[in-house]
C-alpha cells in the first residue's frame, strides 16, 4: 500500500488535534508516515502511533525555531525524497499552508489548500473545499506531481487506529535559503485555558452588540460553562474589545465547530465566511432583521445582556 506523508503540528512534543484528524484522512489514501520536526519531535511518536502512523520520521535542529518556514520545507522535501509518498498532507495553519506551497513548487506538484474532506479517487485524492464564503463546495484534485493538500481543523474525526509508529531519524541538509529570515524574538501567547479556536467543538462569539471590552466577560462566562472557545466578530476586534487572534471571519479564523453561538453579531458576509460551515448555529440578537438569523437552527430575538447570563446560569444548573 502506498505511503502518505503527514506533517505533524506539535508544541514541544504535544501533538495538536488537527494532525490526528489528518491521520484519519491519510488512512483513506494509504499508510500514514508522520514527519515531526523540532524540539520534542521524538516525543510525538506514541500519540501518532495510536492514531495510525506506521512510521514517524523525526529531526531536531535549532534552525526550526530560529528561522522562518524554509528549514521545515527543506525537511519535508527530504522526507518526500526518502518516502516517495502518494500524497503529502499538512494542517491548514498559516505556516502549514506556506510550507506546503513551497514544497509543492519544489517537487513540481500542485497544491490544494483548506480542504474540508478528502477521499481516495481513481486519479488520486479528491479534496472537498468550501469557497466563496462557504456558499459553494468544490471537488478538486492535484493533476500534476505528488498531491500536496492542506486540511482545515475539524474536517475529520480523531480515530484510534494503533500502528507501529516506528521512530526513524530523518536526514536533513538545510538549503542555503534556510537562514534567510531570522526569528529575532518570540512572545508566547498567554494561555486562556480555553480550547484553541479552530479546534474547539463549541465556539461562543461576541460582536458589536457586546458593546465594550468589559462586557466580553459575559461571553467568556457562557463559553466556560460549555467548555468552549471564545470568538469575536471583526467589528468587536476593530473596536479593540477582543484580540485579533480570536477573530472569526474572512480575515480571521475560519471555524467549523459542532455548535456556534453568535451573540450580538449581525452576520455580515465577512463573518459568515468564517463560521457558515458550523454544524449547529444559534444566535442572540436584538435586531429581528439581522442576517445571522437566516443561518440559525435556533435564534433568540432579544437583549444579549438578559439572554446570555440566563443561558449561562441555566447551563450551569443543568450540568449541576
Amino acid at each position, binding site marked *: 500500500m502506498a505511503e502518505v506523508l503527514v506533517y505533524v503540528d506539535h508544541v514541544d512534543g504535544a501533538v495538536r488535534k488537527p494532525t490526528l484528524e489528518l491521520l484519519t484522512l491519510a488512512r483513506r489514501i494509504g499508510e500514514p508516515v508522520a514527519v515531526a520536526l523540532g524540539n520534542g519531535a521524538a516525543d510525538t511518536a506514541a500519540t501518532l502511533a495510536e492514531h495510525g502512523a506506521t512510521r514517524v520520521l523525526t529531526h531536531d535542529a535549532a534552525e526550526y525555531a530560529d528561522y522562518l518556514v524554509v528549514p521545515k520545507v527543506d525537511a519535508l522535501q527530504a522526507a518526500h525524497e526518502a518516502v516517495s509518498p502518494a500524497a503529502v498532507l499538512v494542517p491548514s495553519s498559516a505556516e502549514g499552508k506556506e510550507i506546503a*506551497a513551497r514544497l509543492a513548487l519544489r517537487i513540481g506538484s500542485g497544491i490544494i489548500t483548506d480542504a474540508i474532506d478528502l477521499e481516495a479517487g481513481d486519479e488520486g485524492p479528491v479534496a472537498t473545499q468550501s469557497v*466563496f464564503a462557504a456558499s459553494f463546495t468544490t471537488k478538486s484534485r492535484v493533476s500534476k506531481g505528488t498531491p500536496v493538500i492542506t486540511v482545515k481543523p475539524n474536517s475529520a474525526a480523531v480515530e484510534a487506529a494503533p500502528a507501529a509508529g516506528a521512530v526513524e531519524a530523518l536526514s536533513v541538509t538545510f538549503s542555503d535559503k534556510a537562514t534567510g529570515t531570522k526569528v529575532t524574538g518570540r512572545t508566547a501567547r498567554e494561555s486562556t485555558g480555553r480550547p484553541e479556536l479552530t479546534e474547539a467543538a463549541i465556539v461562543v462569539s461576541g460582536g458589536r452588540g457586546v458593546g465594550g471590552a468589559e462586557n466580553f466577560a459575559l461571553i467568556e462566562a457562557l463559553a466556560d460553562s460549555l467548555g468552549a472557545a471564545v470568538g469575536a466578530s471583526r467589528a468587536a476586534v476593530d473596536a479593540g474589545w477582543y484580540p485579533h487572534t480570536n477573530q472569526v471571519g474572512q480575515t480571521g479564523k475560519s471555524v467549523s465547530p459542532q455548535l456556534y453561538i453568535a451573540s450580538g453579531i449581525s452576520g455580515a458576509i465577512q463573518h459568515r465566511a468564517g463560521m457558515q460551515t458550523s454544524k449547529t448555529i444559534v444566535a442572540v440578537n436584538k435586531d429581528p432583521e439581522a442576517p445571522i438569523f437566516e443561518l440559525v437552527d435556533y435564534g433568540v430575538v432579544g437583549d444579549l445582556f438578559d439572554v446570555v447570563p440566563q443561558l449561562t446560569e441555566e447551563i450551569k444548573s443543568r450540568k449541576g
Partner: protein
Amino acid sequence: MSLRIVVTVKYVPDATGDRHFADDLTVDRDDVDGLLSELDEYAVEQALQIAEDADDAEVTVLTVGPEDAKDALRKALSMGADKAIHVEDDDLHGTDAIGTSLVLAKAIEKAGYDLVISGMASTDGTMGVVPALLAERLGVPQVTLLSEVSVEDGTVKGRRDGDAASEQLEASLPAVVSVTDQSGEARYPSFKGIMAAKKKPVESWDLSDLDIEAEEVGLDGAYTTVDGAAERPARTAGTIVKDEGEGGKQLAEFLASQKFI
C-alpha cells in the same frame, strides 16, 4: 539608490456580490462587479508608508488579470503608487496559484525590485500562498503575514502574529513581504490622487514579454483540476423566538435537546 518596491495586487469579484462559477469551473468574472482585493489595499498602504520614510523610493503596482483588472491598478495609483504593470494574456484564463506565482515572479524580475509587498490572501481564492511561492521562485527571504513592518538600511523587520506566539522577524533585502489587515488602515484616494492617477504610466505585458509559454499557464497548465462545484444547500429555516423573559432558558432547552448540555 532608489528603493524599488513592487506591490502585487489582485482584481477580484466583489465579495458582497453573488459570486459563482463559470461553465469551465473558473471563477465567473463577468456577472459580478470587480474591484481591488480589500486585503491588497493594506499592501499598497504599507508600500506607500515605507516609500515615504525612504529617501528615494518608487512604488510599482503589478497585477495579472483580464482587461478590467486595470481598475485595481487605477485604485492603487490613485492611493499614491507611482506606476503600474498589467500582465494580460488570453492564455492566462484559468491559471492556478502555482502558475500565477510564475507569471508574477517573471514580471517582478523584469521590473526590477528590492522589496515585494503582497496582501495576506486574495478575497476570492483565499489560499494565501502566493507570497511564499514568490519567495521560493525569486530565491529571496520570505517575511510574511506581518502586522507591523519597517525597512531600514537594507533590512526589513516585522511582527508576525501566529496562533501560539508573536514573532519578530528580520531579513536582508531583497525580500518578499506580506501584510495582514492588522498592519494599518489603508488610505482613501484623494481627489487630487484620483486625477493624478490618470496620468501615471500603466505598462501592458503579455506572456511573450515574460518568456512564458502558453502551456505553462492557464487551465491546461494548471497543477490542479476542479471536477465539480455545487452551491451549498441553504440552511433549513430554524426556530426563532422572541425573548419575553425566558429566552435564555428556551435556548438552554434547545441546546439540551441537541445534546450539547
